[in-house]
């Protein structure tokens, strides 16, 4: 499986990759993006099976990236991994078409639960 991982923090991208591994999701190809615009470009070029994205990023944030993807006709499964896990943010994510929102700090179990509903 091919996964686009968008976060402006390189350290957080490393943590997410390590946590995915701890959650049992191994052997996947991870394509890293530093912001939403890079994530959108990667989705259009690489046709991944899943996007994991931070919300708050420079240049283009995660919700704008999701809106851009949906407006372009992409239905790629999209999940947020963000420090903002309020009900309001979860509602905004769901309305925009996100499959889930994992709040930081997270555990491997949070990834197992979120990804269990997807065909990954």
């Amino acid at each position, binding site marked *: 499986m091919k996964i686009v991982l968008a976060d402006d923090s390189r*350290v957080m991208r*490393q*943590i997410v990759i390590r946590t995915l591994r701890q959650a049992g999701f191994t052997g996947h190809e991870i394509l890293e993006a530093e912001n939403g615009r890079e994530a959108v470009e990667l989705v259009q070029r690489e046709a991944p099976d899943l996007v994991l994205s931070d919300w708050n990023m420079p240049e283009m944030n995660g919700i704008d990236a999701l809106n851009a993807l949906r407006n372009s006709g992409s239905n790629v499964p999209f999940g947020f991994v963000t*420090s903002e896990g309020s009900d*309001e943010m979860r509602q905004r994510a769901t309305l925009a078409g996100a499959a889930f929102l994992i709040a930081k700090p*997270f555990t491997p179990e949070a990834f197992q639960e979120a990804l269990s509903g997807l065909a990954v």
Partner: protein
Amino acid sequence: MTTTEFATTPEDLQMFVSEVWANHVAQVDELVPAPPHTWTATAGPAVPCWSGAVSVTGRWQGMIAVDLAGGSAEALARGMLALDETEEVDPVELSDVVGEFANIVGGNVKSLMPGPSTLSLPLVAHNVLEPPSGLHPQVTLDLAWRDAPVRVRVLALPSPTQ
């Protein structure tokens, strides 16, 4: 409305900080309450530290700032980067770690406040970040990890009635 009437409690803040520490630094029980440390922007070499801050703008307006002495910042970085104690921590990655620490604690504090509001990207300095003069301390947590100070502050605009 931009007021301090919506308050974070010390218990909330302690929980957020402890969760981050527990996730990344194994010895969470070693992050303990400590007497207030003297942090100054003009500190000499005796107090090297890293600071990170995020601001929240909207119905609630404020700033969440973290200050870490060198030892505690490096411990958090080693945990987040999965490095052992003999490996050097790259200053660029250390800055990234401090920014993420501020972002995670700040995002969780924001989630307790009434919205809508927006969280800023983190600002990081290898020194103490002084908040804008209009912001007042709402909650301050003074902690230490193996005697290395850690401070977490929530600052907010004062209520019009205060």
